[in-house]
C-alpha cells in the first residue's frame, strides 16, 4: 500500500477505536495562525502531544502553563504527525481557572465592558422581571423569600437554566437572549446563583456569558456566589448583588417602609391642616378684636362728642342769659327816672333840661321834676 493509504487506514482505525478521548495536560507553545487556526501542545511531565482547533471552538482564554481538559479526536496528519483535533476544551484546576479569569478581566476592562459610565439604573418600582437561575438552587428560594417580604407586587418570569457545568453558559446566554426578545417588557433581567467553588462559578466568567450580559437591552442585576466572589458577569452587569439575597434588596423597595412613610405623610398632612385652620381661626379672632376695639373707640368718641355738644349748648344758653341780664341791669341803671329815686331832680325850662344857672332867665318858670311829682319854681334873684 502507499503512504497515503496507510495513513488513511491508521486514521480509520483511530476513529473507530477512539472517536473521542478526554485528556488532561498543560498547555504550551500556544499560538493562533491567521486569526483562525489554534495550535498548542498538550503535555505532562514526560510527554507532549500536538493539538489543533479553530478559534471559534475556543471559548476560554488560554495561555501557556494552564492546565486544561481536552475532548478530542486523535489523528495522524499527512505529514505523519500524531495530533489531537480538539472538539472541546475546559480549564482544569484552580490555577488555570484563575489565570484565564485574569486574562479575560484585563481584556474586558480594556474594551470598556466594566465602565461605570455605561451602567444603567434599575427602576425604583419594578413590575415585571426576568429571573434567570435554576429553581433547584437554594439561592432561588432565598431570593423569592426576600421579595415576598419586601415587594410582593412583582410578576416574575423565571427562566430555568443550568448554573454550572458544561451546558450552563449556552443555557444562560439563551435565557438572556430570550428575555431580551420577549414581547413582555421586563424591567430588569436578574441573574443569580448561590455560592460554590471557583470551578462551579466558571460559567459566569465565560466570555459569551459576559458579552450577553453587557449587550442586554434590559438592565441587568447579577449576583453570583458569596460576597467575596466577584465574577466577570457581575462586573459587566448594571448592578451587582453581593449575594442573591442582597440582589433582592437592591431590586425592590421595602413596602413596610413605604407603608410607614405613607402613614407618616397622612399624619403630617393632618397636622398641617390643623395648623392652617388654627391660623385662620386666629386671624378671625384677631380681626374680631381689632374690630371690637374700633367699635369701642368709636362709641367712646361719639359719647364724648355728645357731651361736648351738650356742654357747648348749655354754655351758649347760659351766656345769652347772662348777657340779657347784664343788658337789663344796664338798662335799668340807665333809666333816668331811677336817678330821681336817689334824690336827684331834673330841672327843665320850657321843656328843656337845664344844667347851668345862666340858662334860667328872669321871668322863666323852672319845672322841677322830683321822684314824687313836679314843682314850679321862679328864680328869686
Amino acid at each position, binding site marked *: 500500500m502507499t503512504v497515503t493509504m496507510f495513513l488513511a487506514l491508521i486514521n480509520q482505525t483511530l476513529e473507530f477505536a477512539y472517536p473521542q478521548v478526554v485528556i488532561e495536560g498543560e498547555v504550551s507553545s500556544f499560538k493562533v495562525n491567521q486569526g483562525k487556526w489554534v495550535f498548542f501542545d498538550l503535555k505532562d511531565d514526560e510527554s507532549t502531544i500536538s493539538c489543533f482547533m479553530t478559534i471559534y471552538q475556543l471559548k476560554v482564554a488560554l495561555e501557556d502553563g494552564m492546565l486544561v481538559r481536552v475532548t478530542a479526536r486523535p489523528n495522524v496528519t499527512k505529514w505523519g504527525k500524531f495530533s489531537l483535533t480538539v472538539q472541546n476544551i475546559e480549564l482544569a484546576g484552580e490555577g488555570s481557572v484563575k489565570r484565564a479569569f485574569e486574562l479575560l478581566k484585563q481584556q474586558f476592562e480594556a474594551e470598556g465592558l466594566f465602565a461605570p459610565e455605561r451602567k444603567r*439604573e*434599575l*427602576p*425604583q*418600582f*419594578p*413590575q415585571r422581571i426576568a*429571573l*434567570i437561575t435554576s*429553581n433547584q438552587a437554594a439561592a432561588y428560594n432565598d431570593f*423569592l423569600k426576600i*421579595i*415576598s417580604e419586601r415587594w*410582593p*407586587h*412583582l*410578576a*416574575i*418570569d*423565571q*427562566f*430555568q*437554566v443550568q448554573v454550572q457545568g458544561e451546558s450552563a453558559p449556552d*443555557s444562560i446566554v*439563551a*435565557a438572556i437572549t*430570550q428575555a431580551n426578545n420577549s414581547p413582555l*417588557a421586563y*424591567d430588569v433581567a436578574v441573574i443569580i446563583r448561590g455560592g460554590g467553588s471557583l470551578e462551579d462559578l466558571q460559567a459566569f466568567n465565560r466570555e459569551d456569558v459576559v458579552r450577553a450580559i453587557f449587550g442586554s437591552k434590559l438592565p441587568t442585576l447579577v449576583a453570583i456566589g458569596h460576597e467575596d466572589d466577584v465574577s466577570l458577569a457581575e462586573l459587566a452587569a448594571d448592578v451587582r448583588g453581593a449575594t442573591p439575597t442582597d440582589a433582592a434588596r437592591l431590586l425592590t*423597595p421595602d*413596602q413596610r417602609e*413605604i*407603608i410607614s*412613610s*405613607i402613614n407618616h*405623610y*397622612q399624619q*403630617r*398632612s393632618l397636622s*398641617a*391642616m390643623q*395648623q*392652617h*385652620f388654627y*391660623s*385662620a381661626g386666629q386671624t378671625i379672632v384677631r380681626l374680631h378684636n381689632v374690630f371690637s376695639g374700633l367699635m369701642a373707640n368709636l362709641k367712646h368718641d361719639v359719647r364724648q362728642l355728645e357731651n361736648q355738644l351738650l356742654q357747648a349748648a348749655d354754655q351758649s344758653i347760659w351766656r345769652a342769659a347772662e348777657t340779657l341780664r347784664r343788658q337789663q341791669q344796664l338798662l335799668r341803671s340807665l333809666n333816668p327816672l331811677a336817678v330821681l329815686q336817689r334824690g336827684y331832680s331834673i330841672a327843665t325850662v320850657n321843656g328843656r333840661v337845664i344844667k347851668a344857672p345862666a340858662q334860667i332867665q328872669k321871668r322863666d318858670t323852672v319845672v322841677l321834676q322830683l321822684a314824687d311829682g313836679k314843682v314850679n319854681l321862679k328864680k328869686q334873684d
Partner: protein
Amino acid sequence: MSAKASSKKEDFQFGKQLNELEKIVDALEAGELDLDAAVAQFERGAALADELQKYLAKAELKVKTIKTQLNSQPHENDN
C-alpha cells in the same frame, strides 16, 4: 436607595403618586397656601395615599417558570 429612573413602560403610577404625595405634604407644611388651596391639596393627598395603600394591599407574588429552549412553552408554577 438612591433616586432611580421610573419604569419606562406604561404610565406606572406608583412612583409618580408617591412623589406627588410627598410634594403635597411639603407644600402643606410650608404654610404658604391659602385655606381653599390647602384644603384642595389635602384632599388630593388623601386620595393618593388611599390609592397607594390599595396597591400595596394587593400583595401577590406571581412566579412563572419558563424553559429556555428554542421552542419553549411557559407553564404556570405558582409560588
